[in-house]
């Protein structure tokens, strides 16, 4: 078969390209919403943990956070996804997309939490005291002074976390969800030609990741130029 024939067989016949298109759409949706959940959870956990470290408050919540971090970071994300699908949501079925978004979001939250916490802890104690001395309470100081700085500092790391997450969603096929990887794999199983569909999948991931990496680099430079501190 010529190159053109192979291409046509894998992507054009029976509109097989749609597997890739739908898969890509699902991959992007899962990644996007999972990262939003991850950032929300991550900030929540990071704030509870650093408040505990600084003030000794939230003993119980801090314990829960620690368990969460240990469990999530101590087990493979694939196992978490399978448990989410076959155990947690065994009776109610919210849809595979929701299951994947939740599993990846909860997983990502644990990593985001540690990124954000290190960001908070890296802010000079003098910033905190300056805020308190002006009359801000603990929460106001965090919100107006500490978190904005911490967020700026960890933005590149958070963006990288998004890139990692995007690639991790490629295991979504294990719960029968058609993400980008599974889309390519379905074509392979229909045409018995592995090279083209899988190469296409790999190239798409690569393009997205390279593009995002480029954006992160740009962001990092912008942040550095902005205040130079």
């Amino acid at each position, binding site marked *: 078969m010529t190159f053109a024939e192979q291409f046509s067989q894998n992507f054009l016949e029976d509109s097989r390209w749609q597997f890739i298109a739908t898969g890509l759409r699902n991959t992007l949706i899962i990644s996007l919403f999972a990262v939003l959940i991850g950032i929300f959870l991550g900030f929540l956990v990071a704030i509870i943990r650093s408040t505990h470290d600084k003030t000794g408050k939230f003993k119980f919540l801090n314990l829960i956070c620690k368990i969460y971090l240990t469990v999530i970071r101590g087990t493979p994300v694939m196992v978490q996804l399978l448990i989410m699908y076959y155990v947690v949501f065994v009776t109610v079925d919210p849809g595979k997309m929701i299951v994947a978004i939740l599993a990846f979001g909860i997983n990502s939250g644990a990593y985001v939490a540690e990124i954000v916490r290190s960001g908070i802890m890296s802010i000079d104690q003098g910033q905190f*005291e*300056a805020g308190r001395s*002006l*009359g801000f309470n603990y929460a106001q100081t965090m919100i107006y002074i500490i978190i904005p700085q911490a967020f700026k500092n960890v933005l590149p790391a958070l963006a990288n976390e998004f890139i990692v997450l995007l690639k991790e969603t490629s295991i979504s096929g294990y719960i029968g969800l058609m993400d980008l990887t599974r889309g390519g794999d379905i074509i392979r199983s229909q045409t018995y030609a592995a090279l083209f569909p899988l190469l296409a999948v790999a190239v798409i991931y690569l393009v997205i990741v390279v593009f995002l990496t480029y954006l992160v680099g740009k962001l990092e430079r912008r942040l550095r130029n*902005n*205040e*130079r501190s």
Partner: protein
Amino acid sequence: MSAVNEPVLIDVQGLKKSFGSNMVLNGISTQIRKGEVVAIIGPSGCGKSTFLRSLNLLEIPTGGRILFEGTDITDKSVNVDRMRQKIGMVFQQFNLFPHLTIKKNIMLAPVKLGIMTREQASLRADELLKRVGLPEKAEEYPAMLSGGQKQRIAIARALAMNPDVMLFDEPTSALDPEMVGEVLELMKELAEDGMTMVVVTHEMGFAREVATRVMFIDDGEIKEENKPEIFFAQPSNQRLKDFLSKVL
């Protein structure tokens, strides 16, 4: 100004502070009246910062009481944040907020704490920027400023809350020598305008010329305090004599 008839702003009664077994302040009692400029001097590690930081509860005293405008701020039921709004503080390391422009540094607290509207705070910031001689820096970020400029902005930021008293912890110690003057000059102007000030400093010239009272702390105690004329000319405490002979 004769401060004797002015009301007492800060009344420190038997203040004690220890870190673990390290007793840093060992019963300090003094009164700071409206309009006074109190310079605190003493050897490194004697507890000057700890004393100053206790006055707005950045350090929590382990004993004694501190009355601010009649209210015991060491009382657990007192809203410390409210009290701190009336007590400005200037740090050795400036501690400007690097993520905000100069003007926003000044406006943040009055606006977010609901003391002023955005418009009022903006006007006040412009006024203060003029007062500290840096109106052209309004839209710049702290990183663009020299040390002396940063400290003048830090003073403006504290003044924006219209505090009743200003605490300074070695405000010129982190500055290059050529920038010390501009900050001291500004503090002198503040003092002349009647601001009540407590200043931990190594600048004996400032203590001598601007302070209305100089306080020597050593071993966690006030060993001597007096008007600067007497304090420097006729020190009675031996440790103070030794100290002065070293720094003068």
